[in-house]
């Protein structure tokens, strides 16, 4: 309240300065109009403004808290928003860096961590903040200056402790089961119809003298579905090498192509036929979705592959590919973890691996201890899901929120 006369004086001074700065447009024009603001119309400022580094983040962010203006929700009730101001000096100048809605008592001022961006906010630097209460009429009353405050990143995000616990438990399970598999423990994996059909389909292609088309999808090399697809490709390529059938692998991404070439090359070497490996069998097409589809569709109708295998990450092109393969009369086996695309494969393909079956397929085919061990660990994790979900259901039904809160993960 004691700043009102000063603010009024500053406002009037600002009006004069602005008006004097304007060039007269007409010689006959009289003295510029001035706006006199009644200090009683200015809103009450926010109080108790506090600034602190935002917790559990990677820096470049400051959290402000305050008590709302007495004219927000009470008094004249004419405050409709708050302006956030930031400066590197307590004397200013203060720049507007955000707004908060009426009734808000907190604002997170997050800025870019990229030096090249204009809103870059370096860590370990003193900042000062003000919050201005803004009325419907546009009058602003700024608060006292809060600060200095520095932003910095935390090494450990305490809000993600449940994730940390699950990572540790899951990794321990994987290590345990991988060790068991290496010691010769018999880890059962139920048969997957889609994968069992792969060998038959390769045999069919050999008998018909036609190639096998293997599509890795539109995923990048680091996607889980693509990684699983590489394992299946290795298995298919090995069989193809044994049967001396032609393999065609058109790739959507250059890194995927590089990995796929290595996988196929290794498979041919494993089959004892390294000289039969044709570098041109795995090739890059383009990184534009529908151009890639057009090219693969053309291959299907020209090469008439006996078997089409679609394994990996697929998007809107899934039905286009599968429909064309169906028209070409190929046996089709598909697998993806992209939920929206699974229906299209189900209706247009002979066999479909649904979601996680794609990951299991790589373990089923490889029979490697690492893959089998991780599959067993995944199953145990699923059992944990069932138990936790059941416990959560009981807790929520009986109104015990603590259980759900314990598993809540901050972003």
């Amino acid at each position: 309240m004691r700043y009102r006369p000063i603010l009024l004086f500053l406002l009037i001074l600002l009006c004069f300065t602005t008006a004097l700065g304007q060039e007269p447009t007409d010689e006959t024009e009289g003295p510029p109009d001035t706006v006199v603001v009644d200090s009683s119309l200015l809103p009450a400022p926010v109080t108790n403004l506090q600034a602190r580094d935002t917790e559990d983040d990677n820096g470049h962010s400051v959290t402000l808290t305050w008590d709302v203006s007495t004219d927000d929700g009470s008094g004249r009730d004419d405050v409709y928003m708050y302006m956030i101001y930031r400066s590197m000096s307590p004397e200013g100048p203060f720049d507007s860096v955000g707004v908060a809605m009426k009734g808000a008592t907190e604002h997170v001022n997050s800025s870019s961590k990229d030096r090249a961006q204009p809103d870059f906010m370096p860590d370990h630097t003193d900042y000062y903040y003000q919050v201005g209460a803004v009325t419907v009429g546009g009058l602003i009353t700024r608060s006292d200056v809060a600060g200095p405050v520095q932003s910095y990143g935390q090494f450990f995000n305490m809000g993600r402790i449940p994730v940390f616990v699950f990572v540790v438990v899951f990794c321990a399970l994987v290590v345990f089961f991988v060790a068991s598999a290496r010691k010769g423990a018999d880890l059962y994996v139920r048969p997957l119809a889609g994968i069992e059909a792969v060998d038959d389909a390769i045999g069919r292609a050999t008998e018909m003298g036609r190639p096998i088309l293997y599509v890795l999808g539109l995923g990048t090399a680091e996607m889980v579905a693509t990684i699983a697809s590489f394992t299946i490709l290795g298995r298919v390529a090995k069989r193809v090498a044994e049967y001396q059938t032609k393999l065609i692998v058109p790739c959507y991404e250059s890194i995927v192509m590089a990995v796929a070439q290595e996988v196929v090359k290794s498979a041919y070497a494993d089959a004892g036929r390294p000289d039969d490996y044709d570098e041109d069998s795995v090739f890059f097409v383009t990184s534009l979705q529908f151009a890639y589809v057009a090219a693969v569709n053309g291959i299907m109708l020209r090469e008439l592959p006996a078997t089409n295998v679609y394994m990996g990450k697929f998007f809107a092109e899934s039905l286009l590919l599968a429909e064309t393969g169906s028209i070409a009369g190929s046996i089709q086996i598909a697998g993806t973890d992209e939920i929206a695309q699974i229906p299209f494969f189900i209706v247009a393909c002979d066999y479909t691996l649904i979601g996680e079956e794609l990951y299991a397929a790589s373990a089923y085919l490889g029979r490697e201890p690492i893959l089998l061990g991780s599959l067993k660990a995944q199953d145990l994790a699923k059992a944990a899901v069932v138990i936790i979900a059941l416990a959560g259901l009981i807790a929520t039904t009986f109104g015990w929120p603590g259980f759900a809160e314990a598993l809540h993960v901050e972003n």
Partner: protein
Amino acid sequence: MSRTGIVVFLVVCVLFVVSWVVKAGTGDPEGHYIRDGFLVTFAAFLTLAIMSFMYKDNPYYKFAEHLFVGVSAAYWMCLAFWSTLVGNLVPRISERLSNAFMVPHQPGEYNFFFYIPVILGILLLMRLSPKGGWISRWPLAFIVGTTAGLNFVRYLRSDFINQINSTFLPLAVDWQGFGHFFSNLSLNATGQFVAMFGNCVIFFGVLCGVIYFFFSKEHTGWFGRASRVGIWVLMITFGASFGYTVMGRISLLVGRLTFLLRDWLGIAS
């Protein structure tokens, strides 16, 4: 080329020229009417060429396909060069190169980190070398391993823990006893019965769906029955998803037909 093929080709050429002349004639005389007429005609030709695939593979489809693939591959190569190499890398590693490419130099304390992808990129290109090809496996392993590790934590949070949290639903919503429940029984979408039924479907659907994805146990007995319910839940979900997505695809077809009928032929408003 057969005689029929030649005749069809000539007809297509004539139609193309006629369309170009007509579109140019009806274009804005103060604008680039010849160029605009050509672009609309060419776009319509490519649309029809791609659609001709529904009949069978033909030279016009092949032309459109190869043009599409070639242009897109070149476009992405240029985009990657100018946005990734010139846009992001060059300004951070060399002032002289920045000046050469006329991009503002961005000196920074940690810019030496940008040499890591440069080295990995060079190693990746070693696959072109007959003797040093094996070196290219290292950057591949780095890319795949690092991103898979990062995704592990991300997916565990979004697809695992948050999903479990979403199944914490009360089976008894606004429960005030059996008397109140049966006296207010209705199929209103916001009613108590529908809310409780919906929560039951979500919980038991998730439970049976998860059971279907158990791979290390044989699906027999009660486990097999729960698994069958799980696959039914999945199939019903896929059916709904299928119908929803097909509607989206039809809107794409409408977009193309609108182009042909309005922008090209001018017979639709």
